[in-house]
């Protein structure tokens, strides 16, 4: 590091640069998490206010009362993440290896739809999947859907919505890791008589793992906390834990219950991420 000023202010400059931003995140991100924990252990009611009472029962009540919604959140998020991976991997591969000079434009095409407001996009899916819409009629005609069957207000619609809404979070990291692969490595495998598939599974796919891991996490985490798809495309029987937290916090003003559920959601996500990191090797997470 050959900076004159770097030597002179070696100790203070980086901290001065960091201070405003980190202070902001400290006060408005870290401290609020502390308050959320504090809130999660309060008891009382909306009329008389909530007091801190070490009310651990909020946590057990949340699990006992809303275990189904928790399970559904992670099931829906897991299925949607797997679908997003399957659907977008071939496209990311295609852009990375066959995109040529159109790469930037094709990437733009992947990102562009997501500049239509999230809620409007989801409402459009409501139109597409509507009871007398084209999709339902076609599926009824080919007997995949029984007559009078519907897509809207089902788990299928919610999972489809989540899959669609978080696609770029999956496709872009996949593209980035595939794009970095040296094509001569794949050629080498084929020169050594690996079949195309074998070369893919032994060379290309392992090298794209950082993208798979990154994309999976970036999709799964927001998907598990989502409530918009379940609200607009599902029925109350498809509600996820996000719907419960939202209604407890914003409608029922039951802050402690909402805070406890938020914490459980975070804890499960952290546990799953750690397990996942262990399974695929933690260096893949950061690298």
């Amino acid at each position, binding site marked *: *590091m050959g*900076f*004159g*000023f770097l030597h002179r202010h070696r*100790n203070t400059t*980086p*901290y001065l*640069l960091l201070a*405003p*931003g*980190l202070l*902001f*995140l400290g006060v*408005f*991100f*870290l401290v*609020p998490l502390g*308050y*959320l924990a504090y*809130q999660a252990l309060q008891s009382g009611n909306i009329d008389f206010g909530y007091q801190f009472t070490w009310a651990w029962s909020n946590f057990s009540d949340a699990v006992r009362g809303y275990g189904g919604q928790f399970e559904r959140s992670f099931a829906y998020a897991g299925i949607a993440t797997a679908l997003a991976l399957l659907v*977008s991997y071939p*496209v990311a*591969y*295609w*852009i990375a*290896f*066959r995109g*040529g000079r159109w790469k*930037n434009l094709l990437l*733009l095409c*992947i990102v*562009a*739809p997501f*500049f*239509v*407001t*999230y*809620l*409007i*996009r989801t*409402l*459009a*899916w409501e139109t597409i999947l*509507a009871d*007398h819409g084209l999709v339902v009629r076609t599926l009824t005609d080919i007997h995949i859907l029984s007559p009078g069957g519907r897509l809207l207000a089902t788990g299928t619609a919610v999972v489809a919505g989540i899959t669609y809404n978080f696609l770029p979070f999956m496709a872009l990291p996949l593209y980035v890791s595939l794009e970095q692969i040296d094509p001569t490595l794949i*050629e080498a495998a*084929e020169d050594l008589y690996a079949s195309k598939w074998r070369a893919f599974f032994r060379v290309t796919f392992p090298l794209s793992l950082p993208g798979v891991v990154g994309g999976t996490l970036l999709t799964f*985490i927001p998907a598990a*906390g*989502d*409530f918009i798809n379940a609200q607009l495309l599902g029925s109350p029987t498809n509600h996820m834990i*996000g719907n419960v*937290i*939202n209604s407890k916090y*914003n409608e029922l003003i039951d*802050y402690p219950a909402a805070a406890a559920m*938020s914490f459980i*959601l*975070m804890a499960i*996500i952290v546990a799953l991420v750690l397990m996942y990191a262990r399974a695929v090797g933690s260096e893949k997470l950061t690298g």
Partner: protein
Amino acid sequence: MSTAEVTLTRRRSGASSPARVWAFVRRHVLTVYSLLFFLYLMLPIAVVIAFSFNHPRGRFNYTWKGFTWDNWLHWNAVPGIQSAITLSLEIALLASIVATGLGTLIALALVRYGFRGRGTTNLIIFLPLSTPEIVLGASLATLFLHSTTYGLRIPFGFWTILIAHIMFCISFAVVTVKARLIGFDRHLEEAAMDLGANEWTTFRKVTLPLIAPAILAALLLCFAISVDDFVVTYFNAGNRVTFPIFVWGAARVATPPQINVIGTAIFAVAVTCMLGNVFIQNRRAKAA
């Protein structure tokens, strides 16, 4: 590209015609699939755009009833929609400027300096990106609710929305600017210093112009994220209404086609900006 071509030519020489057809199918199956994928991506967008020209009879804009320009001509005819858009734009503008400023400083520190606490800093930047939005929203709202305890009354409204947006934008700004700074040639700065420029002049005349594209990209990204945000905003808005909150409210009682008009307009502006960026990048790549 090269691998596919190599195998294809290898097959072509001396292969029988069914094998050639099979090779053709194999080669193009990925292309066809990708085009179908893009159709799927664009389908809801096409619906949004088409239904901005719909002439719905009832309160909901879900079935096609006929073409009209009215929604575009009277885009603000729905009570509340114009103030919602104004609020969204104000918040996005301020939040993206502040977040990009703070984020650029953090990125400079992270890439340029070795210091104690780097790991912690990286973690603090990474955490908001990996926390579900609903938790971000609920925890920040809890902070504001408790502010009264200290006699500091922060009413929910413009300022709480702005703070929330800056909070979740900072990390995106850091990541964007950092990516550019890593590939940065430090010798340019050293040269300026050797020629007698002081730190500030070097920063202003050399560093800043070089990282300007990254700063612009961070600004646009933060702006886009801010305009689109619903969840965190919903928890911290009090009775103020941003555009996504307006849409949320509308989805329950009535969906005027003007919502689609605004959605289409935001989409058009964003795509134009991005096309411009791609165009400039391609021209630069050619010039280089």
